[in-house]
């Protein structure tokens, strides 16, 4: 589903975002991308969205070579990838319903499809009763669930989340994680960058750790910092 071959990204100011990275993510997987601040997690996700171009290497998503897509084809790549951010990025002058419907408008869905799919999706993330609220009338968790609904309403096969719980307290973070797991159970491939030790440790999913732009660990059913625990035993 997602394939990175020897991908490097050096920013124009010389900062290294990613360094000869090879990652392969299968359909339906749930993957945590972990690593210190500045290690290159967001760089990886931006490369997947073709927001930035790799300096070297090849990125294949859904059997399509992303590096070869023309500018005009980028929107269609992004329709296969739902995305949520730490800061929600909802439209403040639109209600919850309208924010989610907006994503369907963009892909040219009919009014009937929109009226059918938006309530179903809001139900999935537990927001059916908040449909008429504006973002500033919602808690952080509710805002992030709105963003999740927007990311999945078009049935994209991939969901990318860049620190989606970064602005939320632990209890609310868990609500979001439960939503993400539900989404993953429906067959969506989820790639989530995070710092949250407890969450990564509790869920026992695949963990890819990036250090200074390089993959330093790739474990199935991993924890946030297995190696540290391992080494601590021997200290």
């Amino acid at each position, binding site marked *: 589903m997602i394939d990175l071959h020897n991908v490097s990204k050096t920013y124009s100011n010389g900062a290294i975002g990613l360094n000869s990275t090879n990652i392969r993510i299968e359909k339906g997987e749930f993957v945590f991308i972990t690593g210190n601040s500045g290690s290159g997690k967001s760089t990886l996700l931006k490369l997947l969205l073709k927001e930035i171009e790799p300096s070297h290497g090849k990125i294949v998503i859904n059997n399509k070579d992303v590096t070869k897509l023309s500018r*005009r084809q980028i*929107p269609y790549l*992004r329709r296969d990838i739902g995305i949520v951010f730490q800061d929600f*990025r909802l439209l403040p002058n639109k209600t919850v319903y309208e924010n989610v419907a907006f994503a369907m408008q*963009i892909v040219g869905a009919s009014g009937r499809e929109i009226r059918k799919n938006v309530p179903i999706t809001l139900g999935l993330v537990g927001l059916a009763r908040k449909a008429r609220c504006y973002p500033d009338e919602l808690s952080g968790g509710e805002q992030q669930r709105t963003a999740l609904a927007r990311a999945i309403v078009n049935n994209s096969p991939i969901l990318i989340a860049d620190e989606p719980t970064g602005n939320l307290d632990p209890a609310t973070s868990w609500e979001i994680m439960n939503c993400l797991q539900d989404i993953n159970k429906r067959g969506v491939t989820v790639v989530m960058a995070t710092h949250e030790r407890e969450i990564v440790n509790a869920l026992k999913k695949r963990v890819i750790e990036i250090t200074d732009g390089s993959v330093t660990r790739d474990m199935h059913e991993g924890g946030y910092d297995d190696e540290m625990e391992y080494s601590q035993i021997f200290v």
Partner: protein
Amino acid sequence: MMKWNTLKYLFKEGIVGLWKNRVMALASAGTIVLCLLILGMSYSIGTNIEYILKQIEIKFGITTYVKEDVSEERILALRSQIGSLPYVTKVDYISKEDALKAFSEGSKDDSIFNDFLKDNPLPASFEISVSGVEYQSQVVSELSKMPELEVKYLKNETNMFIKINQTISYISLVIISCLIIVGLLLMINTIKLTVYIRRKEINIMKYIGATDWFIRLPFLIEGLVIGLIGALVSILVIVLSYNWLSGVFTTNLMGMLNGLTLKDPSDIISALIPVCMGIGVSIGLIGSGMAMHKHLKV
């Protein structure tokens, strides 16, 4: 191809953008109105001057002076020769004495008449009516082939009118060009502001997979609506004021002008509507296109 539903949605977005940014939008629509009003004014004045000139030409026909020392028989021969030219409907001969009589009728002082009677400086002339203005130049060129005649084709009067007309069109051309540039700049600024107001939204749209045209269309619609508003307002003002002014002219001035009429309002208006629409819409679309080109990195 975009779906009807999507177009409807984007149209609504364009109108919302317009409303959020109404002060700037009003300024650019106002400039367009000003520009089109000046255009309408100079066009109306120009076409009316031309129209009146033609009426004058028909009314007064062609005057040709007969050179000194042409014999009576020759004058008679010339008269029938002119009368047989194509398109000539009427030839009047005005002798030197007739001319002097007509001239002195204007002045109450008989002494001029008596002075001039001894040595009449006024030339004899033919006044020729032509079946249509369009044939006038043809008749004139035939007349100029006759060596005894000196064709006077309302030259001075016509030239004066043509000069006034040209000056008006030059001045208005300069003003209109300036206003079109100002209109474009204001339009670019208006759209730039809307782009700025909506930058977050545009960014989100890009992440969700909106195509460039989906993002651009509301701005184009905003520009289009501003241009249309400018065009419609100016057309309305032109229609109302031309109707009013031509009424005023006909009732107050036409008596003096000997039955001359102004161009019918519907002629002026039917010529100006497509021009105003075209210019208004072009400024709107080109302005927003230029603004997006510079400020909307899609």
